[in-house]
């Protein structure tokens, strides 16, 4: 546990120090929030939600922020691999499982902080929250998204030699995961075949879970969502740990 804590601590120190990264990665979600939120607020009516489009997409944008930050954190391992620091941890008398868990927790923590920053900003923009316990529910889903997708990033980084393939992963994996998740539109209004596609996307359950917490309503049963997302998290951590164990440097 002390090793996991050590690795986590390093991630946090790096995170707190990289002010430009914190602000930089707030940029895109904030842009989406302002342009789509204010832009479409008056024209789009979502049935069954009280707050209009703005209230509808805040959970989606929070998910987006957590998703991107966590995948980035996981993929950071490639830098560690290229710049030698990974050797320092791998040659120490600690198990790779501990290193991987530390990285995952660190990535998830930074991702959740980013998510909460978006939440705080949308409160400033006038978002109403259903209840305080709702925020807690939303946090649980944020943590799960953070954990699973950091592990996902670690799994990819373990397989990748350098950052060359990064753009490919972003365009063909991360954006589709975000786009299909129902972060920006209600999944109930989709044609049934697309709807079944969104149900295959683990992020959908995260988005709907956060939406249930913050807006009080959702289109999926939050308990089913919790179950699916938790299973996905366990699965991803196992896959990430197995692949990380096979890293050669």
């Amino acid at each position, binding site marked *: 546990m002390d090793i996991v804590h050590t690795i986590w601590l*390093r991630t946090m*120190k*790096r995170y707190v120090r990289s002010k430009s990264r914190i602000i930089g990665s707030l940029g895109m979600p904030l842009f989406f929030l302002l342009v789509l939120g204010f832009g479409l607020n008056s024209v789009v009516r979502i049935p069954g939600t009280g707050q209009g489009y703005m209230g509808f997409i805040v959970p989606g944008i929070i998910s987006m922020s957590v998703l991107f930050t966590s995948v980035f954190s996981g993929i950071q391992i490639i830098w560690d691999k*290229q710049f*030698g620091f990974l050797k320092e941890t791998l040659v*120490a008398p600690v198990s790779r499982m501990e290193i991987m868990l530390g990285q995952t927790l660190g990535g998830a923590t930074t991702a959740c902080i980013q998510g909460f920053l978006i939440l705080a900003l949308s409160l400033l923009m006038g978002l109403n929250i259903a209840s305080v316990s709702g925020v807690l529910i939303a946090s649980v889903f944020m943590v799960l998204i953070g954990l699973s997708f950091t592990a996902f990033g670690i799994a990819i980084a373990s397989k990748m030699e350098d950052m060359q393939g990064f753009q490919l992963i972003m365009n063909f994996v991360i954006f589709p995961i975000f786009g299909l998740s129902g972060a920006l539109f209600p999944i109930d209004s989709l044609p049934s075949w697309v709807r079944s596609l969104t149900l295959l996307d683990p992020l959908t359950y995260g988005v709907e879970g956060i939406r249930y917490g913050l807006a009080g309503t959702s289109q999926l049963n939050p308990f089913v969502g919790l179950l699916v997302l938790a299973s996905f998290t366990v699965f991803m951590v196992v896959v990430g740990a197995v692949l990380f164990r096979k890293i050669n440097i």
Partner: protein
Amino acid sequence: MLAIEVTNLTKKFNSFVAVDNVSFSIESGEIFGLLGPNGAGKTTIISMLATLLRPTSGSARVNNFEIASQEDAVRKSIGIVFQDQSLDEELTAYENMDFHGRLYRIPKTVRQQKIAELLQLVELDDRQHSLVKTFSGGMRRRLEIARGLLHEPTVLFLDEPTLGLDPQTRNHLWAYIEHLNKEKGITIILTTHYMDEADRLCDRVAIIDKGKIIALDTPEKLKEEISGDLITIQSPEREKLYAKLITLPWVNHAEPHDGSVTIKLEHAERHVAELAQLSATNGIKIESISIHKPTLEDVFLSFTGRTIREEEIGSKEHMRMMHRMWRR
């Protein structure tokens, strides 16, 4: 007592044999050098001994622990300074040390005390709270050595410890490595492709070429194998000069190399005048004639027929530079 015992160690990468059936042993308290050109297999040997790479076949014991089956015990008992930097540039010198101490589960009070002690030893105590990315190459290397010593290893691996450092820093580092060995009794295994480094530091040297050990002895004994003196003649007309030289009665052993010819003989000083005359009468241009005692460079030459020369900048190093440029 043996610090390291290597038996028939082999490492293959697909069909490429990086380390070919290598056996040697290192006494505790020795400074042992692995000398050879880039790509000879030195780093691969070190990586296997440090349990970072699994051997294809053969075995090795480090501090009496088997590298294949007792990984953790081996890791705890060794320190290693890699050829490529392995510091976290976004952390301070102290934080890098602290991270290492925590990884090796050194209790907090001991850790703090040891870090202070070691940073003072490598003269970085005044910069301990600066980020590593502001450090020069020599400072980074010193920090890495300090870090490698934090958990009090009995064996320290140094992979090309002075690569890319200026002469002053090299000298400083050499003195420091000797100090560690003498004062603290730490066994040191270093790889290098610098002859002078191996000659100056090592008690024994293994010369490695293409994955094989081609000679292993003290630097003195290795050099004795080439008895007498060496005359090296630099000339643009190397081939012509060589053809003339081998007709001389006192030249038994001459070899042409890139841009020069080396003659091995006794009492070299008596023949310099004759050489000058030879070149003058035949109209062969000579840039310089030098007489010297054999160095490890000549030993390598006589064993392999090639000189050790530095290869161009490695791909990793290149990538790192690109990354730095990109970040600015």
